């Protein structure tokens, strides 16, 4: 179980979530801080992951960890430099099954944040997680992938390169993907080191075009489905561990000193996925169907355990959640995607704080605030004599 408390950081004044649910959604106006919360949570989860690896190595008789916390770099990567205030405080906790609480506390230190962690992770509590952040800059992926070679040395920001890296990795494993909600299919063809991404028809009208020439909705939604699909179904923690930790030990001649206290198979593992505005450039129907497919990938077809956080502006997505809750409650049609009410949290980010939109006396998400605009339009309409 995880909690987060963010105080006085950028647009956020006081944000407290006692228990981050497996599926969490943030809505709010542009600039309200939805993405900032997601980025802070993703950063804390990453720090906790690194702390687990350090603790694991320590227990395994490797006292000098290959990983150091370079908060200056992380803060710069996240674009947080201007967000830090004199009284900024971020507290992330992870509670293990045994009840042990591990706390990461970030406080202002000059122009960066100081990190304090309360204790090493006990051997029995060690976990190995993967964190993915699918930013709204994902729409550049098709162009970057096509022209990447000529952009060598170009830099489009940390989050773009993170999402591009995950996309690139995912397309090593997934060569085609149905996108029924757009009636198209995504395909990957490899020619030498170069990959070609295409969109082809599923319907009667036959066509195949480059991903970069497809609709903006398609370009935006391919990574939203593809990356979670890769992590939930194909990602191998063992390979990732070997790639990062064991290769480091091997390169530094410390592999013989490594006495693993636990096999990776015995360690708890989880994928954390964060997605900014999955609905970008999609028609309302397609927004709902994308969410249905995304939840299916993360929570139905998954082999790895997944937790998902979204930020959105879409009233359709938030209202659609009520249908998914009811399906779960009524066990409507076993094949249809549903959401267990207790696993869902929906927050409205406003005035630097959070408003919990989960209704307490019904199994519903309160979507009234998303009707304010449509009500206002027709109130104004009616007011004109």
């Amino acid at each position, binding site marked *: 179980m995880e909690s987060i408390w963010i105080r006085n950081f950028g647009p956020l004044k006081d944000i407290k979530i006692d228990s981050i649910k497996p599926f969490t959604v943030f809505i709010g106006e542009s600039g309200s801080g939805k993405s900032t919360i997601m980025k802070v949570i993703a950063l804390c989860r990453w720090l906790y992951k690194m702390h687990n690896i350090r603790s694991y190595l320590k227990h395994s008789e490797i006292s000098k960890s290959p990983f150091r916390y370079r908060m200056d770099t992380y803060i710069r990567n996240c674009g947080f430099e201007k967000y830090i205030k004199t009284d900024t405080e971020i507290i992330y906790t992870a509670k293990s099954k045994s009840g042990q609480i591990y706390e990461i506390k970030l406080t202002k230190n000059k122009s960066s944040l100081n990190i304090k962690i309360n204790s090493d992770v006990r051997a029995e509590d060690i976990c190995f997680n993967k964190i993915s952040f699918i930013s709204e800059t994902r729409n550049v992926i098709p162009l970057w992938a096509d022209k990447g070679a000529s952009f060598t040395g170009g830099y489009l920001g940390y989050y773009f390169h993170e999402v591009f890296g995950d996309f690139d990795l995912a397309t090593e494993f997934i060569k085609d993907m149905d996108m029924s909600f757009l009636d198209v299919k995504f395909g990957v063809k490899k020619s030498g080191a170069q990959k070609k991404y295409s969109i082809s028809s599923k319907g009667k009208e036959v066509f195949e075009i480059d991903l970069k020439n497809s609709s903006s909705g398609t370009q935006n939604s391919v990574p939203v489905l593809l990356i979670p699909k890769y992590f939930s179904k194909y990602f191998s923690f063992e390979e990732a561990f070997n790639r990062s930790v064991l290769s480091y030990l091997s390169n530094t001649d410390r592999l013989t000193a490594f006495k693993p206290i636990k096999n990776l198979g015995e360690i708890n593992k989880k994928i954390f996925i964060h997605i900014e505005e999955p609905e970008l450039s999609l028609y309302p129907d397609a927004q709902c169907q994308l969410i249905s497919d995304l939840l299916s990938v993360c929570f139905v077809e998954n082999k790895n355990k997944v937790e998902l956080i979204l930020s959105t502006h879409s009233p359709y997505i938030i209202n659609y959640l009520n249908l998914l809750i009811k399906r779960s409650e009524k066990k409507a049609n076993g094949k249809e995607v549903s959401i267990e009410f207790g696993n869902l949290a929906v927050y409205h980010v406003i*005035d630097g704080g959070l408003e919990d939109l989960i*209704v*307490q*006396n*019904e199994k519903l998400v309160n979507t009234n605030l998303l*009707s*304010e605009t*449509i009500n206002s339009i027709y109130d*104004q309409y009616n007011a004109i004599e």
Partner: protein
Amino acid sequence: METLLRNDFTSYYGLPVASGILKKATNLSYFELKDDVNLIYPNNGDGIAKYKNTNSLLVNMLNYEAFIDTLPQSFCQNRKKCDLIVYTDSPQYFLLNELTDTLPKYVDSFINSYGLQQGKREKAISQLKSSLFDLMAVSTIRTFSDGFDEKRCCFFNKKPNAPSVIIAVLAFNRLNTISQNGLQMSNPEMEVFGFSLYEYSGDQSLSLSQPLK
């Protein structure tokens, strides 16, 4: 409650004793209210706050906003206040009410430069919260409210309407046809005082005969 407001509330805040407070009472089995309690509406659709009172409890209504506005300007200026205090004669229900109308003339300060209204909901919650804090700071009022079984901060949204050929408004407000009794929302700051936050929209009504906790 009138006396508590007139004497104890004003004394706590160092203000002169207030004059009359507009109060109404009813035991109608169904009634609706607007924000001034001058009139109690027995017919569905005439008011904003809808009450079902099937046990015909005697229900008192005080115009809290008007009361605050009678106090010295130094106190009432910029003070957030809800519209009504509603409580039963028997110690069952104690309710703060904020009635929100979507008509532009009522929410001018929430109209943005594009003519669209913003933040009505937040304004309502904020007015309820501030009123609750002001009231609960007065120990005798807190003791009085503590004696009630059910305490709520309620905001009532006026039922929206639109040209009959346009179904978007109806569609966007369909959530409120699912639940008849209002939506209880989490609000830890209100819950500290034993109050729950409820939101009522469309035809949702506050039932004064629900089984009490």
